């Protein structure tokens, strides 16, 4: 038996917190690569796919979802302690997700709108990123994540190299695709200049402005883009709404609006 065969296969675990399941579904959506992947690593814990559960420690834990309950705030610490590398996947895990809209309102009021007996519901006042609770080795952005990027991240961590995931804006992806700028040429408001790349610039290729589902890029100039939107006759409340969606709690988006409010 060669040394390579003797080597223990890497153990992958997938954990879910508050989320829509779409990012872990991206792993099952890797239809062709999934079987190959399961032959080269041990999928030790992935409840959505199998009830077989191997106990930690894990070499790589993928975390989907945000922290919204006291129980989950505890659980993520336990997961961290039994994982060598911990990677968060998707807008919920990296910024708190759409459910972080509660951070700007009153969660008790929210609960009483949805539930007749809100006292049965155990929930925190905020929805926060995993990185606000434990150390995170890598954050993969997107609502949802891109499955090609997910495979790159898994391969990189298994091979102990750093993942090749660019942090520039969606604009670069449009240029690469050869998509004509929807904002400059078409007057369509677009969040591309401040949004993290990774989706492949899908929206502009469908004649739609980017709506920011990958969150802020490495150095977003939000104020400048807002000025450009105003010049396209977008009212300030429309701009505020578009930053308050899937990555509302990402600091660059959150602070841009707080700043605006301070000025008014």
């Amino acid at each position, binding site marked *: 038996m060669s040394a390579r065969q003797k080597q223990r296969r890497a153990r992958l675990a997938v954990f879910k917190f508050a989320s829509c399941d779409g990012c872990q579904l991206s792993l099952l959506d890797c239809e062709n690569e999934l079987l190959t992947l399961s032959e080269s690593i041990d999928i030790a814990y992935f409840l959505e796919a*199998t009830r077989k559960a191997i106990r930690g420690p894990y070499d790589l834990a993928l975390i989907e979802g945000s922290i*919204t309950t006291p129980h989950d705030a505890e659980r993520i610490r336990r997961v961290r302690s039994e994982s060598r590398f911990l990677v968060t996947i998707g807008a919920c895990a990296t910024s708190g997700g759409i459910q972080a809209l509660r951070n700007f309102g009153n969660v008790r009021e929210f609960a009483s709108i949805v539930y007749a007996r809100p006292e049965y519901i155990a929930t925190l006042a905020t929805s926060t990123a995993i990185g606000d609770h434990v150390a995170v080795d890598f954050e993969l952005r997107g609502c949802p994540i891109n499955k090609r990027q997910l495979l790159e991240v898994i391969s990189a961590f298994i091979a102990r190299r750093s993942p090749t995931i660019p942090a520039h804006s969606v604009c670069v992806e449009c240029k690469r695709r050869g998509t004509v700028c929807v904002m400059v040429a078409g007057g369509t408001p677009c969040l591309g200049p401040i949004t993290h790349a990774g989706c492949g610039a899908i929206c502009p290729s*469908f004649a739609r402005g980017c709506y920011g589902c990958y969150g802020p890029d490495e150095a977003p100039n939000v104020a400048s883009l807002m000025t450009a939107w105003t010049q396209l006759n977008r009212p300030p409340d429309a701009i505020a709404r578009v930053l308050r969606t899937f990555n509302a709690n990402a600091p660059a988006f959150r602070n841009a609006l707080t700043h605006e409010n301070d000025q008014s």
Partner: protein
Amino acid sequence: MKTIKVEYLARVEGEGALRIRFRGNAVRDVELRIFEPPRFFEAFLRGRHCAEAPDMTARICGICPVAYQMSACAAMEDGLALSIPNHIRDLRRLIYCGEWIESHALHMFMLHAPDFLGFDGALEMARTHRDRLKAGLLIKSAGNELIRAVGGREVHPINVRLGGFYSLPPASELLALVPNLASARDRALEALEWMTSFDFPGFERDYEFVALRGSNSYPFMGRRLISNKGLDIVANQYDETFEERQVPYSNALQSAIRARGHYVCGPLSRFNLNFDLLSPTAAEAARRARVVPPCRNSFRSILVRCIETIEAFEQAIEIIERYDGAGPAYVEADVRASTGYGLSEAPRGTLYHRYRIDDAGLITDATIIPPTSQNQASMEDDLREIAPRMLALDHRAATRLAEHVVRNHDPCISCATHFLNLTMERE
């Protein structure tokens, strides 16, 4: 007292647990507990613009985002009395076909089939049934391709908007998918034959089946909701017909028909109420597999899912073949204060949306009732009914049977946790 407890339900979308308590040989109580954390969609939709509802509600569920987009559009367009041209309706049905195929294939091959064959999951099943699983993945990827072609990406498609689409896909791009769709449909026909060889426990219940009734084809979107027990309503009568109840042990609300109680929605209901509308290929496959209405055994829902997958392929090919890519991509909505009601058939059952908006188009009230909350009470009834059989089994086998019973209804727990205004509040 004996208790069967499953702490984490595996192979379902989202997080849930179940507990069955016996006193002697009698079932004392059954609790299907959903502890997926609540995300309060109905609350934060208030104050948002009506045009934002399709993209925001898509995030309720990564497995059936198209269903959320379609029900949201249907509700807003109902309120605004917006009439949608046929070529847009067709494209909506096409992307919905993709979602049925993708979601049904995931459930049949990766979640449900392992129950019948005694595996922990699909990856374990791959060791002995690799070709079957590969066929399933091929079917699933054909569905995803369809969603990608119309919607831009498979999870949370970006091309759907109020009134239609941002842009229409070129006819040549869709036409190029047909060979692959046809061969995936043939894999589904073979899979149906394979699945008929599964061992189905004798388990018939007198469910009330509720589903949309199609007007001239098997239903994806529509306004008329019927049942096998006399229900026949249109979308805006939904609230007076159904009620939702909150139970202390779960973050999901349970639905019931006010007049009669529990019911089921989903593939069995659609099939039993719309068999006559199936395309010839799907109907013929159903007859060959000896699946004909009324099918009252929820274990056999895997066969019905496969028949619906074949139906979705047939409809998709038919739509693509007469699609020419002409016409406007969307119709502009004239926003005004209104209340709208929307229904569509998500892969796992009827999805209801209701919105009230003001003159500026901002949402003042939102209600979303996903299929899993509607089926939750019937899942508990199924468990109660089958529980005596569990007493003869060891704990592991009893647990597996209980999970299997829940999985028969393809619960999507991520969906089921985000709910609605309660009826008791309204009264």
